[in-house]
């Protein structure tokens, strides 16, 4: 290390409180910046991964909606499904009907678990397990229901227990009711934190709801070697007034809806970076002004201006390196805390993560803070080396 730089680093150790406060400030700014960078792209990335994990590349939904968006349905599904299956590249079509239902344990269920609950029901092809991961038992066959594992725990039911399902908001209201056997429990991958859905065979739910030959949306699997976008265009051409979207299209639409988060992230991230630069610039300015006499003497001795500036700037960089490093660790902790708050946001699957820990985001935040600190430290250092040496030699005390 250069001799002058050594002095700068020791100056930092010599003023532990000032150094600690500066490092803390830089750490907080870095953490905020890193979290905002992660928030900016985290939802889209995790939602995209979630969609891709189910193995269906396309979705067909009522015009202008996305799956689980509204209770709108697609009528005349059987004929539409035949047309879709006729499109080249369509390997499998999995229709889904989603609607609100009430469920309650039949009288012979466990004590204390008989209260009716309002929840989401999905009707699906028994072969289609794209919406849930089985935990216990089996998928729902005719006259059966698969219960969300959390709902099962809450109601005290498991495989072979019996539930009553009603389409109305309660069993006392006017509506259709069916008695079903619990085939198993599962985790619904697109469920929100508050949703604890149940799954029935599509035919059963259609019959229960009276929505014959109607579905809420369908998931389409594209055969190997086919381009999802080309298949989407083919379906759109034969499907008429429905929305056909790829997973990327769903992600993009979600991204549009969440642009508010991104804007907030950009603003807060920029403010964090600015605050870090301001802090480093102020501390360097104070530190340099305290050493003007020394700087003048070093210049008088013949040490080059660039070398002095580099060594003074190193002090800022070291503060950013240390503060930024701590900040990255802090960012991970804060992201976890914020995630626990934001995961309850209505309308988003619980499996979607707001903060996806991405090394790229962390390194970008770290790099930006170091760069801004270096620039902020450069300004007072440059100014100090441009002052008149002769007057400073007599004005300043070492």
């Amino acid at each position: 290390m250069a001799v002058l730089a050594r002095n700068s680093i020791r100056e930092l150790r010599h003023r532990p409180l000032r150094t600690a406060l500066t490092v803390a400030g830089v750490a907080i700014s870095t953490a905020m910046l890193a979290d905002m960078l992660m928030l900016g792209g985290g939802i889209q990335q995790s939602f995209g991964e979630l969609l891709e994990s189910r193995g269906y590349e396309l979705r067909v939904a009522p015009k202008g909606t996305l799956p689980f968006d509204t209770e709108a349905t697609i009528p005349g599904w059987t004929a539409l499904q035949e047309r879709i299956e006729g499109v080249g590249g369509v390997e499998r079509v999995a229709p889904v009907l989603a609607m609100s239902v009430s469920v309650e344990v039949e009288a012979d269920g466990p004590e204390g678990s008989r209260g009716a609950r309002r929840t989401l029901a999905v009707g699906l092809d028994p072969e289609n397990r794209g919406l849930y991961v089985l935990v216990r038992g089996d998928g729902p066959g005719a006259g059966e229901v698969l219960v969300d594992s959390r709902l099962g725990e809450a109601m005290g039911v498991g495989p072979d227990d019996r539930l009553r399902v009603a389409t109305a908001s309660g069993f006392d209201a006017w509506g259709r009711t069916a008695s079903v056997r619990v085939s198993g429990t599962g985790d619904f991958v697109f469920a929100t934190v508050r949703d604890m859905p149940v799954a029935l065979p599509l035919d059963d739910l259609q019959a229960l709801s009276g929505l014959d030959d109607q579905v809420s949306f369908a998931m389409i699997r594209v055969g190997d070697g086919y381009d999802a976008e080309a298949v989407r265009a083919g379906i759109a051409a034969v499907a008429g007034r429905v929305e056909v979207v790829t997973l990327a299209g769903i992600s993009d639409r979600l991204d549009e809806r969440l642009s508010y988060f991104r804007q907030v992230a950009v603003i807060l991230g920029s403010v964090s970076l600015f605050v870090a630069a301001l802090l480093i610039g102020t501390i360097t300015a104070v530190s340099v002004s305290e050493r003007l006499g020394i700087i003048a003497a070093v210049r008088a001795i013949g040490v080059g201006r660039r070398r002095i500036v580099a060594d003074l700037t190193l002090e800022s960089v070291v503060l950013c390196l240390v503060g930024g490093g701590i900040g990255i660790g802090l960012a991970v902790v804060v992201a976890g805390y914020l995630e626990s708050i934001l995961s309850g946001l209505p309308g988003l699957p619980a499996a979607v993560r707001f903060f996806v820990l991405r090394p790229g985001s962390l390194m970008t935040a770290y790099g930006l803070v170091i760069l801004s600190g270096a620039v902020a430290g450069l300004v007072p250092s440059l100014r100090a080396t441009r002052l008149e040496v002769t007057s400073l030699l007599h004005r300043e005390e070492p």
Partner: protein
Amino acid sequence: MRGAGNPIVVARRVTRDYWKGRARVRALRGADLTVEKGDFLAVTGPSGSGKSTLLHLLGGVDVATSGGVHFLGRDLARLTVEERAALRLREVGLVFQRFHLLPMLTAIENVELPLAAARVGRRERRARAAAVLERVGLADRLRHRPSELSGGQCQRVAIARALANDPALVLADEPTGELDRATSRRVLALFQELNADGTTLVVATHDLDLAAGAHRRIEVVDGTTRP
């Protein structure tokens, strides 16, 4: 060796103006001076007479408003800021009244500073710094920081730093200004010893004992030099 015809620095009709707000202040009004190799010259005069200004001009720390300063034959006015810095680094040793040692560095690290700036290798600069500190009588204080040294010891470290690159000329501006009488005498003795070893010295001072100990003396009065 000391004598005519071997000048290190020659100043002719040098003036230096400063601006204080809108007022122009003339610190030097046509000073003349020649420093020969091996000289030990004392520059005396009252406060504000222009002693420090003259030293800064001789060493290329500052540039004359008019007149010429030639250092080892080079016109300092024609050199850029960085060229003058490079010249000072290798050919001029500066000693300040307030020492201006880097407080967080040890004595040996302070002396290493000009050597490092001159890109002397780590091992060699450490050896040379230790040797020059030994020469000024601080062989047992190499690892001490300025705060752990007396004023006289700090000034000797500063002198060692000035000598580190074996300069052609050492300029000392009020080197005993912050020291007590006994310590000032030791600094004078050190200067005399260094001069006897061939170091060329110009010392600006109020200290009559120090001035008397030099081989030659000029006085600066109202910005002009008098033999």
